[in-house]
C-alpha cells in the first residue's frame, strides 16, 4: 500500500543515513494519522522520531534550520492546509537560501504532507495547494500517485540538496500497487506514462491518476485511445515527455484536483501552447476543481472536484474539436 511504500522509503533512508530524522504531530508513539510512521520510533528511537506541539511554523522553520546545518529532516505536516502557517519559512527561507548565499547554502529539507478532498473534512482540511509551492523558485514539488512512485520518489527526495514539498493524497494511503524489490529510487523530473495511447494525452497527477485511468478505460470503450501521463514531480517538470506525447496525440486534457484558477494545469497548458502550438488540433482542456472552497456536504464536495466522467467528457471534446476543425478546413 501507498502508506507502506512511504514507510519503507523512510525506514530504508533512516537506516542508510543517520542524519535523517522525522518530526511531526503524533508521528512517534501514535505512528501518524495515516500510519506512515508506525514502528519508526521503536526502531530509531526518540532522538530521530519526535512528536511536536501544534507548531507548524516552528517545526518547518526548525526543519529548515536543521537542514542548513547539515541534517536531513522530514517534517510531517498533518494537512497541507496547515502548511500555510509555515509559509514564511518555506517561501522566504527554504526556497531562497541557496540563491541568497550565492549557491553555497543548500537546504536538504523534506516536508511531507497530504492534501485533497475526502469524507467531508471541509474547507480547511481538503485543499490541493501544490500551485502555491510550484510558483516559488527553489521548492521542488512531488506528487506521487502510486505506491512504487511514492517509495522511489521519497527515497530520492532524501538524497536531494534542495527543499522538497512531498505532497501525498488522503485518498491514496490505502491504495495498492506493486513496489519493486531492492533499491528503488526515482529521479525527479522524469514523468511516467501510466497508460500509452495515441488519440489524446491526459496529464494528471496524484489522486487524479486513478480517475484518469478509469476515464481512459471508458474512452477505450468508445474507441478513443488515451495516453495517461503522470509527471510525478511538478518541479522539476518533464517537459520533454509532455511535448513528445502532444506531438503524437495533438490533443490534451489536464486534470487536477486543485481549483482551476491559477493552478498548475494552467501553467502546463501555457507551456504546451507556447512550445507545441502548431501540434495542437484542439484547445487544451483543463479539468479542475471549482473556484470555491470545498464544502462539507458530501455531494457538494464531490461536485467541487473532477470526477471520472468530467475527464471523459473533456477528452471527447478535444476530439470533436478536431472533427470540427477538419470540417471547417
Amino acid at each position: 500500500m501507498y502508506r507502506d511504500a512511504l514507510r519503507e522509503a523512510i525506514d530504508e533512508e533512516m537506516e542508510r543515513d543517520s542524519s535523517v530524522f522525522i518530526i511531526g504531530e503524533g508521528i512517534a508513539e501514535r505512528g501518524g494519522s495515516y500510519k506512515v510512521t508506525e514502528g519508526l520510533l521503536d526502531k530509531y528511537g526518540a532522538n530521530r522520531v519526535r512528536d511536536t506541539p501544534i507548531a507548524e511554523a516552528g517545526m518547518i522553520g526548525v526543519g529548515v534550520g536543521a537542514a542548513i546545518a547539515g541534517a536531513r529532516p522530514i517534517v510531517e505536516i498533518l494537512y497541507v492546509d496547515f502548511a500555510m502557517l509555515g509559509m514564511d519559512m518555506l517561501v522566504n527561507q527554504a526556497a531562497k537560501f541557496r540563491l541568497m548565499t550565492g549557491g553555497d547554502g543548500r537546504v536538504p529539507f523534506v516536508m511531507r504532507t497530504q492534501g485533497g478532498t475526502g469524507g467531508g473534512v471541509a474547507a480547511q482540511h481538503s485543499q490541493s495547494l501544490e500551485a502555491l509551492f510550484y510558483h516559488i523558485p527553489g521548492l521542488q514539488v512531488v506528487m506521487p500517485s502510486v505506491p512504487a512512485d511514492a517509495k522511489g520518489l521519497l527515497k530520492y527526495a532524501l538524497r536531494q540538496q534542495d527543499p522538497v514539498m512531498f505532497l501525498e493524497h488522503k485518498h491514496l494511503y490505502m491504495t495498492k500497487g506493486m513496489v519493486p524489490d531492492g533499491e528503488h529510487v526515482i529521479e525527479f523530473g522524469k514523468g511516467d506514462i501510466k497508460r500509452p495511447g495515441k488519440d489524446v494525452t491526459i496529464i494528471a497527477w496524484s489522486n487524479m491518476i486513478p480517475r484518469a485511468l478509469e476515464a481512459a478505460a471508458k474512452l477505450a470503450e468508445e474507441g478513443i485511445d488515451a495516453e495517461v501521463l503522470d509527471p510525478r514531480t511538478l518541479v522539476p517538470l518533464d517537459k520533454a515527455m509532455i511535448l513528445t506525447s502532444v506531438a503524437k496525440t495533438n490533443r490534451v486534457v489536464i486534470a487536477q484536483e486543485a481549483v482551476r484558477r491559477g493552478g498548475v494545469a494552467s501553467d502546463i497548458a501555457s507551456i504546451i501552447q507556447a512550445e507545441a502550438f502548431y501540434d495542437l488540433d484542439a484547445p487544451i482542456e483543463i479539468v479542475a476543481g471549482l473556484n470555491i472552497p470545498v464544502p462539507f456536504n458530501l455531494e457538494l464536495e464531490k461536485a467541487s472536484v473532477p470526477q471520472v466522467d468530467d475527464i471523459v467528457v473533456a477528452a471527447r471534446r478535444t476530439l470533436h474539436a478536431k472533427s470540427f476543425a477538419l470540417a471547417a478546413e
Partner: protein
Amino acid sequence: MSAQSSNGNAPSRELLEKLFRTAYKIRVFETEGIKLYRQGLIRGYFHPYLGQEGIATGVCAALKDGDYIASTHRGHGHCIAWGASINKMVAELLQKDTGYCRGYGGSMHIADIKAGNLGANGIVGAGTPLGVGAALASQIKGTDAVTVTFTTDGASNNGTFMESLNLAAIWNLAFVLVVENNQYAVSTKIEESTREVDLYKRGLAIGVESYQVDGNDSLAVYNMTKDAVEKCRRGEGPILIEAKTYRHMGHHVNDPGKYMPADRLAYYKERDPVDRARAALTEMSGIDQSEIDAIENEIRLEFEAAVEFSKASGEVTIAEFREFAAAY
C-alpha cells in the same frame, strides 16, 4: 479574583438552573451526536466536548447580547452555551440546507455571525486573532461588547497565541482568552509539548492579568468570567483564564483514547461538570428531583425533535452550489 464567587452573594436559582441546563444540553448533544455519527448519519470530524462542559457553560453565562465568542475545533459546547438553535446545529451536522451553514461548514465551522458567534475553527489557534479582531472592532466602534475566545492547551504552543494576545494587551481590548487546558493535543500529553503546564503564566509574561480556574466547576468559571468581563467593559482588558479540565474520551469520535490513564480519567469523571452543576442546583436552590427530571426530559426531547427536523430537511442542490461557486 476568587474562584468561588464574584461578589460573595449566594448564586441565584436562575443562574444555577441555567448552568445545569446548559451543561446538560451539551452532554445530551454530544452523547446523542456520537450515536448519530456511529450510525453514519454524521460525517467528517466530530470532536466531543464531553467532560469540558463546565467551561463553555460558565463562560457564556457571564456574557450578554452583543458580545462575541470565537471557538475551536471542539466547538459544539460553545455554540450551545451561547444559545444556538439545536435544530440548526443538528441539521448542519447532517449536511442539511437548514443547518447553520447550509451544510457547507459542518462540525468544525458552525458560526452565527448575527448572534455574535464567530465560529468554530478547523485551524488550531486561529480563533485567538479573530477574537482579538472582534474586540478591536468593538473598541473602534465604541461599544461595550466583550469578546471571548475559547482556545486550547495545544494552541498555547502556537505562535498565534502570544502574538495576538499581545496585540489585545497593547490596545487594552475587551478580550477574554479562555484556555481550555484538557492536557492533551490528540494523544500528545501537555508535558511533552511544554515545560510549563500552567498556561496562565504566559499571559503574565506579557503583562496580561491571568488566572487559573477549575474548568469542571461551571459556577467557579462563571464567577471568574463575570469579574473578567466587568473589568474588560471598564477598559481593563484583556484577561486570560486558564481552565483545567480533561476529556471523557478520545480526541474525536473514532479515537479510543487508550493513552489516557484510567486513574486520571476516573479522577476527572468523579468531578464531572454536569454532575457538579446538577448538584449545585439541587443543593443550593432546593429544587426537587422531579423538576430536574423535567428539565432533563425537556432537553432530550429538544434534541430528538432536532433530529426529526434535520432528517426532514433537504440538502443544497448541486445547481445552487454551482451558482454559489460562480459568484465566489
